[in-house]
């Protein structure tokens, strides 16, 4: 059984949900793991701000409670991306993707900056709207093929999934934070706390990389 991500190294079975570790998904999984460990291990930086027109500058400090909350959210985000990159079930993938969307909002939710809050809010609206396409897409895949299992879908013996449905899933994932909708997210990166903010960008990247493999196989 060869998939777009290579021949599986091993399969982890939970009942009918099969988690497949192909070379591709394994590398993505390891990356998510490494960055999650980094989030746990590192403390936020103190961002410098320059007052325009003068030579005054100040550092932004992150309070302990804010740091704890954001660290928790970033770790949750890391776990959700790990789930999304290895899962062998289309609906689980969509669910994890939606979860990443929430966590991304959560990572910057505690930042006390109006710009960041505004960007996070707009991003959240887009992410929430995108879940319609995500869940709709996966439900339509189940309707046309009768299964949600990615390894079974990859065998190519089932009825073909319409292009529109594939587009649904891809646009849904893009809504969770890829290129055209990224504009809302870029403003979120103003927030101090590099290790956590990186998780926002890493998670959507990993999910985008996974959705390509998923859609190629459908």
């Amino acid at each position, binding site marked *: 059984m060869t998939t777009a991500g290579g021949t599986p190294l091993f399969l982890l079975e*939970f*009942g009918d949900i099969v988690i497949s570790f192909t070379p591709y998904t394994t590398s993505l999984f390891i990356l998510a793991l490494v960055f999650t460990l980094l989030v746990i291990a590192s403390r936020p930086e103190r961002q410098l701000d320059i007052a325009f027109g003068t030579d005054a500058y100040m550092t932004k400090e992150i309070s302990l409670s804010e740091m704890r909350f954001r660290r928790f959210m970033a770790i949750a985000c890391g776990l959700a991306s790990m789930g999304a990159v290895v899962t062998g079930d289309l*609906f689980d993938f969509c*669910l994890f993707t*939606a*979860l990443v*969307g*929430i966590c991304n*909002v*959560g990572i910057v*939710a505690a930042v006390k900056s*109006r710009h960041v*809050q*505004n960007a*996070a*809010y707009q991003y*959240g*609206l887009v*992410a*929430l*709207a995108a*879940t*319609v396409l*995500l*869940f*709709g897409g996966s*439900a*339509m895949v*189940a*309707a*046309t093929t*009768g299964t*949600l299992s990615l390894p079974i879908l990859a065998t190519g013996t089932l009825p073909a999934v319409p292009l529109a449905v594939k587009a649904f899933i891809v646009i849904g994932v893009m809504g969770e934070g890829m290129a055209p909708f990224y504009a809302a997210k870029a403003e979120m990166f103003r927030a101090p706390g590099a290790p956590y903010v990186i998780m926002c960008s890493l998670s959507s990247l990993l999910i985008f990389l996974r959705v390509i493999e998923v859609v190629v196989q459908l």
Partner: protein
Amino acid sequence: MIGQYYSWGLLVVLIAAVAGFAALAFEKDDLHRLLLIDLVEIPSLGFIALLGTDLAEALILPGLVVGIAELFALSQIYLVKEGLQDRPVRALRIEVVQRSPAPLVLSSILVVYGVILSGFTGGAIAALGLIFLFLAKDSADDLHLLELASGMSWVLWIAAFFVFMFLPEYWYAALMGAAIGILIKVVTKLALVGTMWGEQA
């Protein structure tokens, strides 16, 4: 496996989704957009529900939970963003229901009926009975017992799932355990919602 009306259903849901998205695109006010988003979420459940199988039933719940979680997160951000403070919620006061034996009888009927129905509907009806009881009395009751029951039922529910996963041959016992667990869970939680509401004033 697709029913014969699937395409029609799909068309209706798609129209609903497009209408929701269009409203979202036209609306400029952030709060209204938040409300509209909730509306847009419903077609996504519709897509799943159209499958019309047991699988769909199992998938709707996680979809719903994720949607609600996002909605909560967003409304929290909205509060912070707009600098809105927590405003006290006025208590619900219904003078019609006075303390008397009648509510006790009524609520026990509802609870028994709910237990017979079981599942979510049953939980809701049984909870309605409890809420009714709490509203009728003054809500100064000791809630620890309810919370304890809720916690225990949750454990039962989770344990049942583990039985499903690791000892599938005892599925019937697990099913019963999960059903009872979810029933008690829903009952207690809904009852707590009722009492908390009254408590704040």
